[in-house]
């Protein structure tokens, strides 16, 4: 099963932006479960695009105005949800932000 871990946090989580993930990625790559992982630019610099009635609408900022924003993502491949939870729980961001686990549809 492939899952995406969406790393989220509120403004206070920004303080951790430079933290890296404390060896988590090295360990998970060695274990063979981590396929991809990146941090994202700040939500304030996001551009949101919609096309309605053939018109391109551009908005400055993220699509959802919520306190918690996506700060990064990882793609993992593992046996089942239980292993995914175990992997996510080890990520340092789980200690100050939130991690949403979403299954990727099979290709």
């Amino acid at each position, binding site marked *: *099963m492939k899952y995406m871990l969406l790393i989220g946090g509120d403004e206070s989580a920004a303080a951790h932006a430079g933290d890296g993930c404390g060896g988590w990625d090295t360990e998970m790559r060695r274990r063979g479960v981590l396929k991809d992982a990146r941090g994202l630019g700040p939500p304030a610099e996001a551009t949101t695009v919609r096309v309605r009635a053939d018109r391109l609408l551009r908005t400055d900022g993220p699509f959802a105005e919520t306190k918690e924003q996506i700060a990064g993502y990882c793609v993992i491949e593992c*046996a*089942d*949800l*239980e292993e995914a*939870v175990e992997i996510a729980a080890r990520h340092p961001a789980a200690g100050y932000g939130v991690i949403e*686990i979403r*299954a990727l549809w099979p290709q």
Partner: protein
Amino acid sequence: MTPDVETAVAQAFKDEWGQVVATLIRVTGHWDLAEECAQDAFALALARWPRDGIPRRPGAWLTTAARNRAIDRLRRDAAGAAKLREVAAMSYPPENESSDEDRAVPDDRLRLMFTCCHPALALEAQVALTLRTLAGLTTPEIARAFLVGEQTMSKRLVRAKQKIRHAAIPYRVPPAHLLPERTPAVLAVLYLLFNEGYSASAGADLMRRSLTAEAIRLARVLARLMPDEPEATGLLALMLLHDARRATRLDDAGDLVPMEEQDRQRWDAAEITEGVALLDGALRRGQAGPYQVQAAIAACHASAATAADTDWPQIAALYGRLATLIPSAVVRLNHAVAVAMAEGPAAGLELAAVLAAEGELAGYHLLPATQADLLRRLGRGAEAAAAYREALALAPTEAERRFLRRRLAEVTAAGLPAAGLPAVNVQDLIERDAGGRAEGVPGVVGGRDERALPDAVRDAEQPGYLALVAEVQGGPGGTEAARPGGEHVAPGGGEQ
């Protein structure tokens, strides 16, 4: 069809439905297909058993029939390699053709219980799935039992099954190191089911009231499948000991009858005997968790020949122990009531005052109701009346308001000596209320202590649970260590 066959099929449905569905889910990996094929198998039994006779092992017959049906259906709409693989996977020899005794593999029903009660599912979904797949209740029946629309319940079940499939929630009994974290969720769902039925009023839908029987049946299965988990046995004992008093808890008007006034002749002696024996066996393992302690409290009540014989000092001590296992203000309120019964109203009032000062129970009618009762017994009529009025303003049900108004009238009646009133406590109210509150919840097994059982020998006449329960208290912090990070909000506290 002869009534015999009808009875046999109905009995097989009660006994075997969960097993058939659980096995079919394992072999096909499809929850809906498993349920449909199980249904087909029972329909086939109704057609065949009158002609061929009732099979020697109805469960094996039904599982085979359901499996064959699944193969047929998959062959018929087999499209693509995935489906064919599923058919191939079904060539495993059926597990329950072998006898129960020599089966080394985990029972499929246990897998099913742990999967239904997986913490990644919402609690209400866990409960609904358990009733549907393990107990065999239909969606309309479950909807009726939980007072929600059929469509709502149907959606809830569909979503839960989809999540299990799409998010790949594994179909298995968790490995040993995860059991302490996961078992409480299963116990909590069964206890919630029990409380839903137990707290239903006399006029409530029969389906709702039958939840206690379903819960007891599932708890029996769980206790048998997890012989090394004394909390599972403790839960079964707790249910039986509560259920034994069922016929006497409400009067004809549906009002609560305080335990002191219940007709003990009508308590179910067989259930009490069984519950006490089960609790005995569980406690001797020396790992008294919240269910065993609550069962011990219930056993103290159930084995008192008269209300006056109730061993309140022991009950008070057990509540003290329970409060260390379940950090809940409702449990501490129960403790205060028990202390009042054991040491006098003043001692209980002191504990209640501490709770009132902490404010955690603000707005909870049973705190002022308790204080009112204790003040009444101390002869402080005016203060008691004020507390009864406070409780009345907060009480959520008409039955409780009636009870409180009666008491209020008693304390305000001029010249009536308070000492002449029966010493009624509000514990029944608290107990009744606890079913609906997600508080005081034995959501975590606390204080697992692997030390050898103390050599406490108990007097068969007077249960002395305290010795067994208190001995395991030794491990400081053990309770905290065993908590699964609070990720699972468990239901239905059942303060006795």
